[in-house]
């Protein structure tokens, strides 16, 4: 296990470094010459150019440039937004918590709900509940997330008028303490609900097929032959074996959520990085965009490391 942990952390680190390299290359390949921008359109003084190149280290070989980029990035310096004229790192740090809150909450909720539904459907295969859940999951699976979000807004806000649709807090009130928490939760219901509904089918399908498959394994037959109670067989043996694919899916789904949440954040005016991404794309704000992608890649790499380690804890066959 120790060796596996070490290996996995190492490969994880490598992934992150590669993310940085790609990021760096994108900046370098981006059209436009920064020196020219600095010198202004008209002047073309080779002495000035050399001095500026010297000052910004642009005359150094590419790999030296990469390490100095890495050093500044590590210090939290991701450049300045050309639209807002503020440090990109500050802007991301401001928006990131809201996105993480949204992604983790909906990730965990859909994991629990989808998996529970899948297990129930598998245990009651062919019954009304199974048909109902499968139909529900099938319908959800074919819905675009933004459309589902809009429908929920229409139902719960426009018609029933019970849930807020906009932002993360009530802008007109300034709550503190418990009231603040409740206010945020109230604002979270619709965006989280949308994401959860969208993610449920994936967990449902995996959990159901995995439970069905494990139930037919020979070792379950052996346990039945021993007279062990169905409850114990399920709780200890089927569950533990059937949950493995779900762990993998959780990692993938979280990565998908991290990158795909922008749309839902826009629909619900959620003050997270998602909106930052969309504005940055619209306004060609490259430094911001690159900074956000870097953060996303790193978070996905971290999620994957954690998921793999959890998997290794659950499945001894992985710990080579």
């Amino acid at each position, binding site marked *: 296990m120790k060796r596996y942990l070490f290996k996995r952390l190492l490969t994880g680190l490598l992934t992150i470094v590669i993310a940085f390299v790609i990021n760096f290359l994108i900046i370098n390949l981006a059209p436009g010459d920064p020196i020219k921008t600095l010198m202004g359109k008209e002047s073309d003084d080779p002495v000035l150019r050399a001095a500026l190149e010297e000052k910004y280290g642009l005359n150094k070989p590419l790999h030296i440039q990469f390490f100095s980029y890495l050093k500044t990035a590590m210090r939290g310096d991701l450049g300045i937004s050309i639209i807002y004229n503020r440090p990109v790192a500050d802007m991301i740090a401001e928006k990131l918590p809201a996105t993480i809150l949204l992604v983790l909450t909906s990730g965990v909720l859909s994991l629990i709900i989808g998996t529970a539904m899948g297990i129930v459907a598998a245990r009651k295969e062919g019954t009304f509940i199974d048909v109902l859940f499968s139909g529900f999951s099938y319908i959800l699976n074919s819905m675009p997330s933004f459309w589902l979000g809009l429908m929920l807004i229409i139902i719960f806000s426009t018609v029933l008028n019970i849930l807020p649709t906009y932002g993360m807090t009530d802008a007109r009130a300034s709550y503190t303490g418990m009231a603040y928490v409740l206010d945020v939760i109230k604002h979270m219901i619709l965006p989280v609900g949308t994401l959860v509904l969208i993610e449920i089918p994936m967990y449902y399908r995996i959990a159901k097929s995995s439970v069905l498959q494990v139930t037919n*394994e*020979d*070792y379950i*037959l*052996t*346990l*039945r*032959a*021993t*007279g*062990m109670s169905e409850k*114990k067989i399920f709780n*200890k*043996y089927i569950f*533990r*074996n059937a949950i*493995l694919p779900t762990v993998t899916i959780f990692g993938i789904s979280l990565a998908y959520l991290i990158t795909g949440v922008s749309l839902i954040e826009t629909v619900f005016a959620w003050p997270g990085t998602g909106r930052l991404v969309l504005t940055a794309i619209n306004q060609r704000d490259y430094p911001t965009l690159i900074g956000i992608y870097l953060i996303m890649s790193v978070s996905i790499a971290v999620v994957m490391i954690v998921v793999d380690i959890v998997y290794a804890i*659950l*499945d*001894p*066959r992985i710990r080579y």
Partner: protein
Amino acid sequence: MDNVILDVRNFNVTYVNKYKKVYAVKDANFSINRGDSLGIVGESGSGKSTMAMALLRLLPEKSTEISGSAYFLGKDLVKLSEEELKKLRWKELSVVFQKSMNSLSPVHRIRTQVEDIYRVHNPKATREEIAERFIHLLKLVNLSDRVYNLYPHELSGGMLQRVSIAISLINNPKLLIMDEATTALDVVTQGQILDEVVKMEKEMDMTRIMITHDMSVVATSCNKVAVMYAGEIMELGYVKDVLKKPMHPYTKGLMASFPSLKGKKEKLQSIGGFLPDLSKKYEGCIFAPRCSSAMDICQKKPPVIEMENGRTVRCHLYGGER
């Protein structure tokens, strides 16, 4: 009669699905006395495992029909309630499955699984007690006690098969069914384990059903043999009688297709033709299409003919109307 451990009468097993029925075991009759060891032989697909699984009541009820009776220690396994059955499972009646490579959960230690299995019937057993008992059994099947703390994937197929055998013995069952339990083992290990099993049987007062393709396994470790073909028991009797002088044409063919037990080099013969489609019902003798002694009367179902010494043969050659 209290010498009889298992008495199977008019036993039928049919797999049922939407499109067809598969008559996998038809009208099986046999009984096993205390201390007996019955070998069931027959080519692949002849219904050996199906019979074992049905006796253990492990086939899904939805998709199988079982009829007849199977009295085990005086209780009919076919009709017993699930609760009653639970009391017998593993304590009196245990099994080693054909695919015993997969008969342990891959994500739990062998120790954990053994403890759980032992506690089904002995809920209060301590870990030490179980470990002691199981390590003793591991020795019997030639494994080191180190195995106890390992995960299944850390063992070879043959080792897993031996672990499965050890687990099946954990409660000193009255009847042990071994379905191809020694196939993954090399000849030497197989011999050793069979010797051990035979020895233990004497000590533990255990009776055994041994399902196998291998006539030599039957010859060395069983006292009775049932020859199955296409779901029917064709010949049944003491090993010493049947192997010395096979009567049913199928048994003869089966014997000829194995290397001579006495080590004489003979040309091996195979029986021509294939196993019939078990989803159809047949009027006459089911072996007729492949039988070189087939006669006109074989268009009619042959009766089970009883010979001396408890031997039965299902063939027109040995009686009934000619």
